[in-house]
């Protein structure tokens, strides 16, 4: 969602989606709380699997939009954004 928003100018819409992102982050936190170890990084193998899975999903959503005429979507942002998100969820330390 954040990647799509970078291509749009509407301030109101981005404000709305900041709120939505916060809601989704809360759901992700609930998932994280169910995963052990809670206070430590997950094993590298699991991290790689999670990153790959999210990356595939996001890439496929964005590619669908690019093929339908969206412009200005930077697919290079996917990977660093996922890593940042996983850090905030304490999946990666």
């Amino acid at each position, binding site marked *: *969602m954040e990647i*799509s*928003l970078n291509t*749009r100018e*509407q301030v*109101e*819409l981005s404000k709305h*989606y900041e709120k*939505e992102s916060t809601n989704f982050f809360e*759901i992700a936190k*609930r*998932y994280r709380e169910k995963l052990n170890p809670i206070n430590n990084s997950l094993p590298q193998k699991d991290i790689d699997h999670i990153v790959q899975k999210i990356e595939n999903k996001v890439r496929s*959503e964005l590619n*669908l*939009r690019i093929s*339908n*005429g*969206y412009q200005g979507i930077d697919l290079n942002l996917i990977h660093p954004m996922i890593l940042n998100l996983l850090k905030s969820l304490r999946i990666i330390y």
Partner: protein
Amino acid sequence: MTGSFLEKGFNFNDIDIIIIYNKKLNELHLSKKIESMFGIKTHILLIDNKSLLEGFSSDPIYQLMLSKCVSSKRLIIKSTNRFDFKKLDLHLLKSKNLSDNFELLSGKEKYDLIRNVVAISLFIKNQKVNKESVDREIKIELRLDTKEIIENKIEKKSFSKEYEKYYSKTLNKIMNEIKNGSK
């Protein structure tokens, strides 16, 4: 005043208040003040007249929100639907992962995400968007009872199949419009 507070019974978590203003107000201060007065969590949406009309004509969730409200002054909104399909695509994306997160979401959260897709679908078909029309569509198209969704009593397997179908149909319509050059 709008939202679940106006529905039958006492199944509400907060009060949603829309303030149509000419002068900028302090949103946070106001909601804190109302919260302390009534002891209920309050969401305030501050909006000027122009943005309200703009939202109402292009956003099905505004139409849903304002289809039932009480106001201190008579509120008459006359507008024709204006379709910004990229904006609708972004709104729809919110409901994308409902099936994946099924076990983790509360009934109310599920209902909000289902309602979002259905409101968008009705809107692009140029149909009325209000609580009754949304619940009717949920019943007909998804074969679900609103009460059961909110009470978190729906079964994932049968739900996901119908839901994914409905979601894809709505997404395809939006994508086609975008491909054909609609905004």
